[in-house]
């Protein structure tokens, strides 16, 4: 592939052919992972809904592993790789540094993904997403994760190299845009995350070959340095996408660069210690360690999200007011482009992430509440609001701009695309809240049969639990329809869609 550039007719940005191709490749693999993760999500959910109880126990745990790995690792990280190429090369009008290494990184990540999928689907890695040692998977599972992580680390390096190239070749004036700055913090957190990943998966790989010992508590400590920090890559990338979508949909302005950028820096400084809140009811750590890491460190990262939760909507309001929607307090909101799936996805992403995901997450970070929340359905209830209702929804919203701008295709089934964020956000909101409620009754997460038919002692949850789980399943099904529409629209647009002409998106 050559070093050609094309001029984007809509945004006026110069797009490097390599950046174009890399974004496409990563986005396509991300969508495949989303499809696999989505199908397993529906099957897992129809099993937890005791009225249906679809899968046998072995396939339930297998597909729960598949769901976690595909959604939290493959879908989201491939998408973030695309975001990194976009935020560096495209937004800065630059070429991609070292395209050959970029492609080898992509191959490594795909190879790692392939290995992990193979071990999971053949029943060689029924260890769930967290793969807590000494639960044992086939060595190829850990090797696959390592290959994937090395590939991701290479992409992050290329992102930083591209920033240097752009600066040196003077492809932009002044400082990098806020979206690129946010992506850079995501990339820095990715380095921290992948460092923890190497520190735990390499010993675990050796352990799986019987070459060394790995302590179960040390595994949990270091693994959460990966597991939680990786969710902070998502947060930083999602907030960057919020600013991006705000700019694209309503011309949202940056209120104050200093405030927004400082908030991003807070994520970098404080987030990896916040991983400690996963270990609040663990035996290995003392009170001082737990309190310090989950209060001081975590709340300053929370502060960053509180700041973005103000500046993003306020920037949107100001953008709309500058466009002339100045009547009263809320004309800017009433006259907002609610039919643009990019806009509705942005609004729901901010609301679900902040009000459902954020608040539940912060409360779990205290010792006493953690005692009543740990490993109950409150935990997945929380992170489906942050990662799915927040991050995945924002990524879906930005796809409706990636398809016309990068793939240069018109969006197929536009009427379906317009309602997609409403279905997905509405379904996910009900799903997360219902799941959280079920958790308050003590219902465990990651459990095949909460009717305990074959257990030695009887456990009978309050009848309300059946109702709440039923509501959860209905919300999940609506969200799954939304997710299905997303995949249909994107795949159809990209592979069978009409080429774009003159900026008309749909």
């Amino acid at each position, binding site marked *: 592939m050559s070093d050609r550039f094309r001029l984007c007719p809509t945004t006026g940005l110069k797009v490097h052919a390599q950046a174009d191709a890399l974004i496409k490749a990563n986005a396509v693999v991300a969508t495949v992972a989303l499809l696999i993760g989505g199908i397993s999500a529906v099957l897992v959910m129809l099993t937890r809904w005791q009225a249906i109880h679809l899968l046998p*126990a*072995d396939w339930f*745990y297998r597909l729960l592993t598949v769901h976690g790995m595909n959604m939290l690792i493959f879908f989201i990280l491939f998408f973030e790789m695309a975001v990194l190429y976009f935020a560096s090369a495209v937004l*800065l009008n630059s070429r991609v540094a070292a395209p050959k290494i970029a492609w080898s990184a992509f191959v490594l990540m795909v190879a790692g993904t392939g290995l992990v999928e193979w071990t999971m689907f053949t029943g060689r890695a*029924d260890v*769930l997403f967290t793969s*807590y040692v000494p*639960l044992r998977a086939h060595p190829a599972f850990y090797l696959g994760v390592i290959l994937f992580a090395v590939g991701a680390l290479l992409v992050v390096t290329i992102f930083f190299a591209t920033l240097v190239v752009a600066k040196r070749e003077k492809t*932009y004036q002044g*400082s990098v*845009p*806020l979206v690129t700055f946010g992506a850079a913090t995501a990339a820095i957190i990715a380095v921290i995350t992948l460092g923890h990943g190497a520190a735990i998966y390499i010993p675990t790989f050796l352990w799986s070959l019987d070459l060394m010992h790995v302590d*179960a*508590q040390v595994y*949990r400590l270091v693994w959460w340095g990966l597991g939680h920090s990786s969710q902070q890559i998502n947060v930083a990338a999602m907030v*960057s996408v919020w*600013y991006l979508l*705000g700019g694209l949909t309503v011309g*949202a*302005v*940056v*209120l*104050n660069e*200093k*405030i*927004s950028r400082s908030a991003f820096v807070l994520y970098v400084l404080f987030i990896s210690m916040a991983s400690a809140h996963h270990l609040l*009811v*663990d*035996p290995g750590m003392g*009170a001082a360690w*737990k309190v310090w890491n989950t*209060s001081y460190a975590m*709340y300053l990262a*929370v*502060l960053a999200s*509180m*700041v973005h939760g*103000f500046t993003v909507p*306020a920037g949107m309001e100001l953008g709309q007011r500058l466009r002339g929607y100045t009547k009263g307090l809320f004309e800017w909101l009433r006259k907002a482009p609610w039919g643009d799936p990019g806009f509705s996805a942005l609004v729901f992403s901010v609301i679900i992430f902040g009000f459902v995901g954020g608040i539940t997450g*912060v409360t779990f970070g*205290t*010792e*006493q509440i953690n*005692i*009543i929340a*740990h*490993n*109950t359905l409150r935990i997945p209830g929380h992170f489906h609001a942050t990662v799915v209702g927040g991050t995945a929804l924002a990524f879906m919203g930005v796809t409706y701009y990636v398809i016309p701008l990068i793939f240069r295709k018109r969006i197929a089934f536009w009427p379906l695309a317009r309602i997609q964020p409403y279905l997905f956000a509405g379904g996910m909101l009900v799903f997360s809240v219902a799941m959280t409620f079920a958790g*308050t009754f*003590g219902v*465990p997460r*990651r459990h*095949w049969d909460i009717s*305990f038919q074959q*257990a*030695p*002692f009887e*456990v009978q*949850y*309050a009848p309300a639990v059946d109702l709440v789980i039923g509501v959860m399943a209905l919300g999940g099904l609506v969200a799954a329809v939304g997710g299905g529409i997303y995949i249909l629209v994107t795949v159809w647009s990209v592979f069978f869609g009409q080429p774009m002409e003159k900026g008309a998106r749909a």
Partner: protein
Amino acid sequence: MHTGLESPTGVWWKPAHRAEKLWVAIAFGWCMVLFAMMPLWHWKGGQNPTGIRHRVTAEAFAQRTQEFIDTYRVGEDAGIPVVEPPPGSDIYLVGAMWSWRPVLRLRQGVQYTLHLSSVDVNHGFNLYPINVNFQVVPGYDYGLRVTPTEAGEFQIVCNEFCGIGHHLMVGKVIVLPAEQTAAVTGGAP
């Protein structure tokens, strides 16, 4: 005024608008309240996850639990030994794929030191129906000071995935009312 997609030129380190400053101040203040609550509640609150922590090998913990069972055994329930330890003593509960041993018979209103560990993989201690949760990690003896405040039967549900039989892993705790004497407690309930 520019969007987040555009490169700001010149010096962008400028004073923020009043509204933005106010919000940052409120958010920071609230974070400090939370920050203060965390240690405060640790000292003032009655229920903390902090216990006595020891490393222990699976063999040693299994042996200690077996001695505990042999000493205080009063019966059997669903194939699992029932023990009634003296009030205020150290009590042991071991998680193993896929059971909790033994069944504990305790006294209301008396403090015990509950030692939790696993002899194989991670397990999750969840007390039904009052919903109290602890991580049970192999290699670590988690000693928690517990005082049963309610009489009745409680189940221990494993809530950390521990393999294919995870859903079978349910244990039991019986709490006898404070007024009941030791004489009436012979045999399984």
